[in-house]
């Protein structure tokens, strides 16, 4: 039977098997790429103040405001199958009964770092730049508004006294005076096709584990006096992620 229908079916069938095989090969081959991430993370300041979850709420909770400095090189995470790296910094602290309940953890800051060949999207990170001078040449203008400092490549982050993106609180509404807290850098590699990968602290095959990217700290007592509004600002970044929740 060599009518048009069977021909179309055969072609489509062959196309899907080839596409599937190529996708599988790409997804598996990432274990051959070598990764050597490095990072140094420092806590710069932490304050705890009283606040409300939103304007119309009557609930008063304690919120922690954490500023940090980060110098990270995650550029080797960008291999042929990387679409983006979602880098994020969390604060973790022991629960009320550390023996039976694991640590609580909350994201303080995050950034979507796209690969160079990823299509443009409004929700990608824009790395802060030091110079406030207006760009003169076209090249200078193009090097601004990237997810990495001018002249560098995706995965490089150099943040000094970075304000948090989120103020955090505990489920109990109390977060002041907790000890043994840790600030940690994490990442999630989003592939073009295949498995999602999160940060590894131990070396796995050709993927070196991350050393550093951790900082121990303590949550201070609640601020008695009203904190200056300027000090408690969060930085949502210049990216326009203003979509409604859905």
């Amino acid at each position, binding site marked *: 039977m060599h009518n048009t229908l069977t021909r179309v*079916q055969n072609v489509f069938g062959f196309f899907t098997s080839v596409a599937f095989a190529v*996708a599988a090969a790409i997804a598996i081959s990432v274990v051959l790429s070598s990764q050597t991430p490095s990072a140094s993370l420092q806590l710069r300041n932490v304050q705890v103040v009283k606040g409300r979850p939103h304007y119309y709420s009557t609930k008063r909770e304690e919120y922690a405001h954490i500023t940090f400095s980060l110098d990270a090189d995650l550029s080797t995470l960008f291999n042929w199958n990387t679409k983006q790296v979602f880098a994020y910094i969390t604060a973790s602290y022991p*629960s009320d009964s550390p023996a039976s*309940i694991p640590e609580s953890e909350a994201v303080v800051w995050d950034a979507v770092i796209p690969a160079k060949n990823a*299509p443009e*999207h409004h929700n990608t990170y824009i790395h802060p730049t030091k110079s406030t001078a207006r760009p003169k040449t076209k090249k200078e203008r193009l090097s601004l508004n990237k997810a990495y400092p001018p002249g560098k490549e995706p995965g490089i982050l150099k943040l000094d006294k970075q304000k948090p993106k989120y103020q955090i609180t505990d*489920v109990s509404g109390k977060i002041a005076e907790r000890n043994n807290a840790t600030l940690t850098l994490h990442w999630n590699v989003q592939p073009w096709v295949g498995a*999602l990968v*999160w940060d590894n602290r131990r070396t796995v095959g050709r993927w070196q584990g991350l050393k550093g990217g951790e900082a121990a700290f303590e949550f201070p007592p609640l601020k008695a006096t009203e904190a200056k509004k300027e000090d408690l600002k969060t930085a949502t970044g210049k990216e326009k992620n203003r979509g409604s929740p859905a």
Partner: protein
Amino acid sequence: MFSSLGNLQPRQLAAQVLNFALVLSTAFMLWKGLSVFTNSSSPIVVVLSGSMEPAFQRGDLLFLWNRGQETQVGEIVVYNVRGKDIPIVHRVIRRFGGGSAPLQLLTKGDNNAADDTELYARGQSYLDRSKDVIGSVVGYVPFVGYVTILLSEYPWLKTAMLVFMALTVVLQRE
């Protein structure tokens, strides 16, 4: 093509119909088998909204895993809002409890300005890992699921596809 339907012997027709039923039941068994393997009621989901862009676009296919209930911050979970049956794919940004206490999660879409507190059921401020979450995203295939979005947006396509599939199976002769 259609004239050949009349020429079919009753036995042959019955065999073809059985064949079609076999195809459908095999697909169903594969789906349920995957469901048992991953311990998730819906092991493969299609992204329906742009709230996780640019990581996931509408129509992307996600593979879920639901064994091991120790969901960490930064993982992307799929959950159903209580009382509504719409799966939502968002990232975990806070976690409390776990171990001997129930694990509570707060989620947020990468592309959203605010966290999901407003999306949850009335009076609920955190997700319950064991009750609300269907699974954690482990695998990703772009765009392939767009067919299902088309099918749900244009219901006549469903009928057309079913009729076409039935006809090709019945009319095909070995």
